[in-house]
């Protein structure tokens, strides 16, 4: 059996995981917060787009364009109204508050949309693929990967080439000193969360187009995102792409050996990375 096909599929799957991870990494980089409801917000955004598609009969990509500013506003409000109150040196409060949000979102979605698994449709594009011998490359997985690269390029540009990025990095370094410069860290954090939620909307779109989702799908999305961040190394956007790719390859290769080993193989690779390089592969010293 050739390993080339699972390898390629794994790299493409890694693009999706990098999209999951980029938003998580952004938040952690700016405010040292791990949002335990990250995966549930991805699922929430997917349902939001599904609702747009079914209620307004819009194409899925238009729903994505509507969802992006909406998710920005949601992230901004979440940070302003709830999460900013939790960010005092203590690790416990933000973790437990986001964990509570995770339970609320899962059960809210269950009430609103039932436990049935759903999907976003983009017409014939979904099944389109190019075939080279034994290997077939799906158009949607390829677009996902390209978008992941573009999102990471965009975030890198934003963080290292713009005034907003300078403010975000300065706030990450010291909330006290940016205050001397007349900047309100609470506002900066809210913008960071808003940006993270825009990335969440993009991730949700591709998750929903690539596979089925249901209200309980959030936690495993969080774990994939987290694993990609840790494998790649903290504080690096490109690291999330490398981490996501390694995770994706681990899963597809695992699944090629035994279909029941898909998730397990990804987790094992993650644990092996913690054992060998706990700061990740691309960690800055």
């Amino acid at each position, binding site marked *: 059996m050739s390993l080339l096909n699972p390898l390629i599929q794994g790299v493409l799957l890694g693009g999706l995981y990098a999209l999951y991870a980029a938003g998580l990494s952004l938040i952690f980089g700016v405010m040292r917060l791990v949002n*335990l409801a990250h995966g549930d917000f991805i699922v929430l955004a997917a349902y939001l787009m599904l609702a747009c598609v079914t209620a307004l009969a819009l194409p899925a990509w238009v729903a994505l364009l509507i969802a992006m500013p909406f998710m920005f506003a949601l992230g901004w409000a979440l940070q302003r109204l709830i999460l900013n109150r939790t960010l005092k040196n203590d690790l416990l409060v933000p973790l437990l508050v986001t964990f509570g949000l995770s339970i609320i979102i899962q*059960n809210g979605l*269950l*009430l609103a949309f039932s436990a049935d698994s759903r999907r976003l449709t983009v017409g014939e594009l979904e099944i389109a693929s190019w075939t080279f011998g034994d290997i077939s490359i799906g158009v949607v997985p390829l677009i996902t990967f390209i978008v992941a690269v573009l999102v990471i390029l965009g975030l890198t540009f934003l963080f290292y080439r713009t005034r907003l990025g300078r403010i975000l990095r300065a706030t990450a370094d010291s909330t006290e000193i940016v205050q001397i410069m007349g900047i309100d860290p609470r506002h900066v954090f809210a913008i960071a969360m808003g940006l993270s939620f825009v990335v969440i909307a993009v991730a949700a779109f591709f998750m929903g187009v690539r596979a089925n989702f249901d209200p309980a799908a959030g936690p495993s999305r969080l774990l994939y995102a987290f694993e990609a961040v840790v494998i790649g190394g903290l504080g690096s956007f490109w690291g999330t792409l490398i981490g996501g790719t390694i995770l994706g390859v681990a899963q597809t290769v695992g699944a090629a050996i035994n279909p029941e080993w898909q998730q397990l193989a990804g987790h094992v690779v993650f644990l092996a990375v913690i054992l060998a390089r706990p700061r990740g592969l691309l960690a800055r010293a």
Partner: protein
Amino acid sequence: MRYGIAISTWNSRLILIAAGVVVILLAFAPVIAPRSLIQDLILIFVMCAIAQCWNLLAGYAGLISVGQQAFVGLGGYGLFALIILAGVDPLLAVLLAAIIGTLIAIPVGLLMFRLQGAYFAVGTWVVAEVFRLLLAQWKALGGGTGNSLPRTATTEMFGLSTINALFGVRNAVGREIVIYWAALALAAAVVGASYLLLRSRIGLALSAVRDGETAAESVGVDITRTKFAVYVFAAFGASLAGALYFLDSARISPDSAFTVLDWTAYVIFIVVIGGIGTIEGPILGSIIFVVLQSSLSDYGPWYLILLGVLGIAVMLVAPRGLWGTFSDLTGIHLLPTRRRLVPLGETPPTREA
């Protein structure tokens, strides 16, 4: 004035005696209480034990785990493996299963301690998922669909025939009474051990670490070793509680054994509502939780949303929880673990006098 250091308060010795009396009274509950109440009490004891362990981790050692379901599940699966594959007596199997869980916790802990803070939290969740996926592969224990205990394990158990004769009850009831006592002993032992642990040198080290890691290290506290000891103890408590819970339910599956909702979300709710960082909090929390559960769980998703909202509200408004807030307002500590300065009497007269 001369000062000394004391942990006990004037009434804490009385409280200990009262707690002993309560435990003895609870031991007689099966004589009068209906079976549904006995089942509720078993759940309170099991949840109280797991919550107390999580409280030690998060409230005292600063280790936030979202993966204690790993050890609850390992306790349950250890029990089923020992009974089904090795034919061990169920009560003995509960103890052995807890030891298995603890032994597994050592390498797992060594790996997890390479992660800090929030990363530790999510890391423990991944580990719990790994155990869920691994045990779903163990065909001898039913694979992904799980397994039930064989009839012999529910009819032949240490002390069961004596109980049946003593109370004049059938096997099913007698078995429930044995499990009830074991659960009562479990909760009392975990609470008691936590109390002693926090009053010992480890407890002093933990509060030093909580007040300032660098300062604690500079006076010779081995932070990692202290936290690791608490981690392993919490794994032991969770495995023991898990083994007992699944002996009671007599059915296990990877999804029920390693569910993050039951063994972590509920447990966090109990500790947060009751009062994190207090011994009394998880006891109060588990009583509130089981009362809410038996009256509201029919509402399904709405019930869980309510738990989430309550938990978040308490975290934001009164992060010390019900007991912590009560204790701050009144100064009452039933089970004090803090060291206080107390006056020992007048200082000897100085020269001016």
